[in-house]
């Protein structure tokens, strides 16, 4: 169980990354939303300003035109009159019927009043007339419009008026005169007073030079307690000019001399709104993040617990394969499929371990047995006895043959510890064995080898034939009365090698056949047929091995089948 340094927990990673992603997404969206809102609010605030000012400008322009038109009407009403009374009546009529006309004057070039109509009011004597200004009158193109001022020529009142005048030639007067009308300004003033842009915004009128014509708070302005930098504004062209926290919208009247300025406050119209939006958005963002973090943590718990359990189970398994007992517990499909695979793997591992154990045991036993077989005392004693006897009998040639066969038998048995040996060696091993046994069981049997030459170089398990021959001799022929025959056939069948040992001996019952393949040889001398079968299966698989066919009193055929092997696999045992 090795712990790697700097491992990150799944829960933490999940929580952090999802929380971080959420945070990022929400903040990005919030930022985008807020800046979009800000832009929208700004542009709609500007548009609103522009519209209000445009509207005001139109209204004032219309009013102006109306005043000019009224002037024209009055002029046309008196232009052809020849008598002073008529003129006077006309002026009285005009000024009397119209509430918004404060007075009508006819000036000469010097500004002296030639005629006037003022709805019955009388002129004060000696008063200078604010409605006449020689410089302005002389320099005007056509219509003279004087900025709002008080009318000071009538007793008892000082109304604010706007004078609209023009030069004209009337029948009555020899020279050209000025006809001027004083219109009440208070209605226009209250119109401007009531213009609202947003909550705090307002409009005012200034002339091209930047002098204020009318401002709703002009008294506060002139007291110096409020600032309106009209000079600076007069340099701006018509249109909307957003400054730091103020939006100025400007429009010049069509007739050219007056400009309407709209002032609105971005803080009111935008910042406060944005502030509110921002705080709502961030509240939502905060809530969203908390929620997502909470969900993250919950889900990562749900997810990581079974995984941790699984990891713990694996560690447990590693420490103790045998006693491990796995309980699967998970509601998450990915984890439970992992779990069941793990459980299966545990099972498979156990099986494999058992198989390897068994095989190991089998092979160890074989080695053990081979070693033992190689020094089987009884066989050795008996053979040496035979050899001694032969020597005593001076059957030298037979003795030599026996000794040679014995030597060959043991050499091949050992085969330098290898398990797989060339078939030719195995055949020779069998032949040596039969040579020895035929001396011992003299004239009790004969044998024959039918071997396919082409397979001699292929490999097979060592000590394959000998145990079978031993079985054939001891059980088959040893019980016969007549001479027995053992035939060994080695041939190739497609991709397999088939050894076949036939004897015509006593035969075995079905039960005996089966028990041979199953039973371990109880005496510790030599390798049994079961062992040969096991080794073949271990090396080559269950489809290969030994088959026994037998019939009582007829004979037995034992078939050994294994695949063609040309090279030994790596035997590092």
């Amino acid at each position, binding site marked *: 169980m090795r712990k790697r340094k700097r491992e990150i927990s799944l829960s933490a990673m999940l929580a952090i990354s999802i929380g971080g992603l959420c945070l990022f997404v929400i903040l990005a969206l919030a930022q985008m939303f807020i800046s979009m809102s800000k832009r929208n609010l700004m542009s709609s605030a500007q548009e609103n300003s522009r519209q209000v000012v445009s509207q005001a400008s139109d209204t004032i322009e219309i009013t102006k035109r109306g005043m000019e038109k009224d002037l024209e009407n009055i002029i046309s009403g008196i232009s052809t009159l020849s008598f002073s009374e008529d003129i006077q009546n006309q002026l009285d009529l005009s000024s009397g019927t119209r509430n918004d006309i404060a007075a009508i004057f006819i000036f000469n070039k010097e500004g002296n009043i030639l005629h006037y109509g003022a709805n019955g009011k009388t002129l004060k004597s000696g008063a200078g007339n604010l409605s006449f200004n020689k410089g302005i009158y002389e320099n005007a193109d056509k219509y003279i419009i004087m900025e709002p001022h008080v009318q000071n020529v009538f007793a008892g009142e000082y109304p604010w008026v706007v004078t609209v005048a023009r030069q004209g030639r009337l029948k009555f007067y020899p020279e050209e005169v000025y006809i001027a009308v004083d219109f009440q300004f208070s209605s226009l003033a209250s119109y401007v007073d009531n213009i609202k842009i947003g909550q705090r915004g*307002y409009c005012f009128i200034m002339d091209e030079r930047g002098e204020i014509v009318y401002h*709703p708070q002009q008294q506060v302005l002139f007291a110096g307690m409020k600032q309106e930098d009209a000079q600076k504004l007069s340099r701006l062209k018509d249109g909307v000019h957003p400054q730091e926290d103020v939006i100025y919208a400007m429009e010049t009247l069509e007739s050219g001399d007056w400009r309407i300025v709209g002032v609105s406050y971005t803080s009111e119209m935008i910042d406060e709104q944005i502030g509110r939006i921002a705080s709502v958005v961030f509240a939502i963002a905060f809530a969203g993040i908390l929620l997502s973090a909470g969900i993250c*943590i919950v889900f990562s718990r749900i997810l990581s617990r079974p995984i941790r359990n699984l990891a713990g189970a694996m560690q447990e398994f590693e420490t103790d394969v045998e006693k491990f007992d796995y309980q699967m517990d998970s509601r998450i499909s990915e984890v439970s499929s992992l779990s069941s695979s793990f459980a299966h793997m545990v099972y498979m591992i156990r099986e494999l371990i058992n198989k390897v154990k068994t095989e190991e045991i089998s092979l160890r036993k074989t080695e053990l047995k081979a070693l033992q077989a190689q020094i089987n005392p009884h066989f050795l004693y008996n053979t040496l006895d035979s050899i001694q006897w032969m020597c005593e009998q001076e059957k030298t040639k037979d003795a030599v043959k026996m000794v040679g066969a014995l030597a060959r038998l043991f050499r091949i048995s050992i085969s330098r510890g290898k398990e797989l040996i060339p078939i030719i060696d195995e055949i020779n091993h069998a032949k040596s064995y039969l040579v020895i046994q035929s001396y011992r069981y003299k004239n009790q049997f004969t044998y024959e080898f039918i071997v396919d030459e082409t397979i001699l170089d292929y490999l097979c398990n060592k000590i394959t034939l000998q145990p079978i021959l031993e079985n054939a001799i001891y059980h088959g022929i040893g019980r016969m009365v007549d001479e027995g025959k053992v035939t060994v056939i080695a041939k190739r069948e497609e991709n397999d090698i088939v050894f076949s040992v036939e004897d015509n001996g006593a035969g075995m019952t079905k039960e005996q056949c089966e028990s041979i393949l199953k039973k371990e040889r109880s005496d510790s001398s030599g390798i049994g047929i079961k062992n040969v079968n096991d080794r073949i299966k271990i090396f080559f698989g269950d489809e290969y091995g030994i088959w026994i066919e037998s019939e009582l009193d007829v004979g037995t055929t034992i078939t050994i089948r294994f695949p063609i092997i040309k090279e030994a696999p790596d035997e590092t045992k």
Partner: protein
Amino acid sequence: MKQSRKRLILLVLSLVAMTCGLGCTDRKNERKEVAMITKSTNSSFFKSMYAGAKSAAAEFNVELQYEGPQHEEDFEMQNVMIKNAIDREVDAIIISAIDYNQSVELLDKAADSGIKVVVVDSDVNSDKVSQRIGTDNYAAGQQAAEILLKKGEGNLRIAVVNFDENTENGQEREKGFLDTIIKEPGAIIEKRIKVPSDRVETKERTIEMLKENPNIDAIVTFNEWTTLGVGDAVKEIGQQTDIAVVGFDNHIAAIEMLEAGTIDALIVQNPFAMGYLGVKSAWELSTGNRGASEKKVTETVTVTEENMFDSKCQKLLFPFE
């Protein structure tokens, strides 16, 4: 799973808390209520003040409640109005006080209950006032003295006609006037009378005084109504050219008298600005945008026949209807 459920509950609670908090912040932007109580409501001066206050009320989205007693001596009525304003739980009171001392207790009570108190024009003897706005009355008195000295010829024998001695602004103006006159060796204060703030009574008392003191060749008086009364008096006895008169404020009739020569100079205040700044300050103070600060002085302009029709003077002198 219990822990995650706990967390969920916590989340829901915090969300609820947040929305509540948001709802609360909105309350801050509620419309402010301001009560404006002046000395009276029918003089040109206070009408202008109201116009200025209305302009600021529209600009700052303030609900303006305007009232004042019938007579400019009726401090008891003013106190009733102050009390009503406290009961209505307004956000601020703007007051031009009739009596320097008699309204202090109530105004302090208002200030203690969280109402911002703004004084315009005529002050009270309280240190709980958040903002004072108005004419520098002492300086205005000085201005009156200076113009009187200019307009009058030779050694002056001056009569001072003043209104209620408990009203602060009148007293300050008189003080400023007297302190300046004293420095001038040729000018003597011949007589001082106290009149109610009423045109007719002032006229009668002034005529009386002039009859008793025929040497008087200069009169100073300190507010709108007394100015009109003095002007009427001088006109009635036919001594417009003989007596130099300096008065206050810009009632239309006074302007006429100025043009005619009956009155020689008017010290014109800026009530529109006072009203405007009064409401603006009330709004700033009650929204917490700023704290209390020093007195804001609105300018007074000396208007004479010579400059009365100047562009700037026109705008200060002649109110819009």
